[in-house]
Structure formats: C-alpha cells, structure tokens
C-alpha cells in the first residue's frame, strides 16, 4: 500500500492529462488538474526556502566554514519576505525597489561573469585536434564574430555567414536534438505513468 496509492495517483493524473488532449469532455478536468499541479508544485518553493534557512541556521549554530555570511542570506530572505508580505509588491514599493535595484544588477552580473568562465574553459578545452573539432571551433568563432561590429569591419559577409550558420546547420542539429529529446521524454513519461519508472518515489521497488 505504501507504493500503490502514489502509483495510482500518478497513473490517474497522467491519464487525465493525456485524455484531455483527445477527449473534449475531459478537458475541464484536465484544466483543474493543471491548477492543482501548480498549487502542489508551488509547495516545493517553500520546501526549498525552508531547506535554505535550515542549512544556514545549522551553519551558524555549528560555526561551519564561512558561517559569518549565513546571517546575510537569512537577512536578505527575511527582508524580501517582510516587505513583500506587509508592504506590497507593486512598483515603487520597497520589495520592487530591492528587486530592480539590487537583484536585477546582481543577476546580470552573475550571468555576465559566466562570459569569463566560458571563455577561459573554451581556451583550455577547445583543441583543433581533428577536422570536426576544427569545424566546431570555426562555427563558434564565426557566430561570435558575426554578432559584433568588428565582424562586418573585417569582411562585410561575416554577419550573413553567421546568420546562415544559425539558420541552416544549427537549425538542423537543434532539430535532431529536439526530436530525439522529445522521443526520450515521451518514453520516460509513459514509464512514469505506467509505474515502471519509480525512482521519484525514493528508489523503492
């Protein structure tokens, strides 16, 4: 029984979602289930937040490595929660101010840092050992060059070639990956719905 009920829920929920696509009469049931799905899945965010607080409180209590920064995380979390809950989230409110003036610049900076790391990793890993590796290198280089003004300054046709690479060979490759991934997803979904794949229940058989 420990596994039967969860497996039955998975089967029923999965079948309703598939059926609502083909049987119009089950569409409203599918829509309601999607709303239920969002509500239940949203609890995972709370679970993550509780876990984050738990980890940092634990770090402070046992004075683990870098524990001095844990109060910063807890304070950041608390300030966002308090301002969001009690002062509103509309534009102009403290919550929105902290989002636009602190979180957005920090997020952009974090992602822009990746430019350095990716460039550094590429410099170390990219080696034109064979003609296919060279092709990858050339393709990446032309696409990058085609997106900056210096590319057109070197040769006026570079932006066009870059666009062609994106629109033709890249499209073909991405399509093959997408179709392959979709097939994999369909197979995995069916395995889950029919209870063959159960690892999400904790690996129990």
């Amino acid at each position, binding site marked *: 029984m420990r*596994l039967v009920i*969860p497996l039955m*829920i998975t089967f029923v929920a*999965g*079948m*309703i*979602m*598939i059926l609502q696509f083909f049987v119009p009469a089950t569409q409203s049931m599918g829509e309601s*289930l999607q*709303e*239920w*799905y969002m*509500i*239940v899945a949203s*609890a995972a*965010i*709370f*679970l993550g*937040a509780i876990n*984050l607080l738990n980890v940092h409180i634990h770090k402070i209590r046992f004075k683990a490595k870098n524990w001095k920064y844990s109060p910063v*995380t807890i304070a*950041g*979390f*608390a300030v966002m*929660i308090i301002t*969001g809950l009690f002062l509103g989230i509309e534009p102009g409110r403290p919550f929105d*101010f902290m989002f636009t*003036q*602190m*979180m*957005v*610049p920090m997020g*952009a*900076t974090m*992602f*822009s*840092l*990746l*430019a350095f790391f990716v460039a550094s990793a590429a410099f170390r890993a990219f080696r034109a050992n064979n003609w*296919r590796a060279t*092709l990858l290198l050339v*393709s*990446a280089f032309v696409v990058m060059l085609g*997106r*900056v003004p210096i590319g057109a300054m070197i040769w006026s046709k570079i932006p066009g070639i870059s666009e062609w690479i*994106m629109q*033709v060979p890249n*499209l*073909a*490759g991405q*399509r*093959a*990956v*997408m*179709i392959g991934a*979709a097939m994999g*997803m369909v197979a995995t*979904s069916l395995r*889950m*719905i029919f209870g063959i794949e159960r690892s999400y229940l904790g690996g129990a058989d």
Partner: protein
Amino acid sequence: MSWTFVGIWLGALLSLSLYSFLYKDNPFYKFAEHLFVGMSAGYWVIYNIKNVLIPNWWNNLVPAEGGFQPIWLIPGTLALFMLLRIVPKLSSLSRMSLSLIVGTGAGLSLTAMLQTNALAQVNGTIIALGQGGDLLSWISNIIIVTGVVCGLVYFFFSKAHTGVVGGAANIGITILMVAFGASFGYTVMARISLLIGQTQFLLFEWLPTMGIHL
C-alpha cells in the same frame, strides 16, 4: 539624496563586489553572493504566494462572490503534505504530492513535447528542396533535411553504426558539431551582451553620480 541615487549605488557596489571574484574569492564576493541567494529565495516565495497560491488556490477556495469550495482543500492538503517532507515521521505523505506532480507533469509533457518538439519539428523539416528558388536555398534545404535525418540516425543506438547507418551517423555528427559550435558562440555572445550592459551601467549611470562623465 533620492532613492534613484541610492539604487544606483547599491546596484553598482553589489555588481563590483561580484566582479571582484575575477581577481580571487574574497569577502566582498561572498557577501554579495550570500545576499543574492537569500534575496532570490525570498523573492520567489513572495512571487509564488502572490502569483500562484492566491489566484489559483485561495481565490478558488473562497471565491469573491461568496461561498466556500471544499474541493480546493485537496490541493491545499497535498501542498501541505509536500512540506511534511521535512518531518521524518510523516515524510512518506509527501509521496502523494510528488505523485500528483510527476503524473500531471508526465501527462502534460508527453502531449506537449510530442506536439511541439517532435511533430512540429518534423513538419518543419518536410520542405520542398527547391523552396526559395536560388542555389543557396537549394543547398540550405538539402543541409536541413539531411542534417535532421542524419542527426537522428546518430542518436539511434539500437543498430550498430556501420555501413550506410555509420555513414549517415558520421554526417549527423558533423552537423551536430557545427550546431554545438554555433550554440556555444551564441551563448557566449549573450553573456558578453550582459557584461556590456553592466559595464555601461557602471560607466554611464554610476560614475556620473560622482561627477565623472565619460
């Protein structure tokens, strides 16, 4: 001192703290990193309450026009079960919630992926080779059709990659290498554009607050 001024300084100092990691790991970076993690978690919790739970759950449970809809207690209870994962004795109840998420997600993604990522892409690949008219269009269309078919052959592992299958798989690898190179270049440029944006913010918004105009 206006709030805009405070906002620019906060954004600039936090950005510089994060960029300081390029030199080496340091307390300024760690401070900004921890603050970002905490604020992001808080932001998503509030976003979730205001944009998911209130409109989808609370407004259905207690509609504005009055009345009480007990059926909506079920997803609420399942959401609560999910949180019970942190209580070891009751954590098995979270399996019910997880099952609903997995079942609905699997059913939803099965049809959606099949429709958008498989059938629509196959449909997009079935093109007249002469479409476009000129020689470049011919070549491009042949590359698209051959690339997709050979790329799929490369991903088909149920048959040994020898003979014709091996030849097709080889063409597939070549197309995939070009595609991965292009995707890599595109991703790097997206990051570079963020870097340019942040640099412009520091140079043209933050420096002028100190009277430095470039």
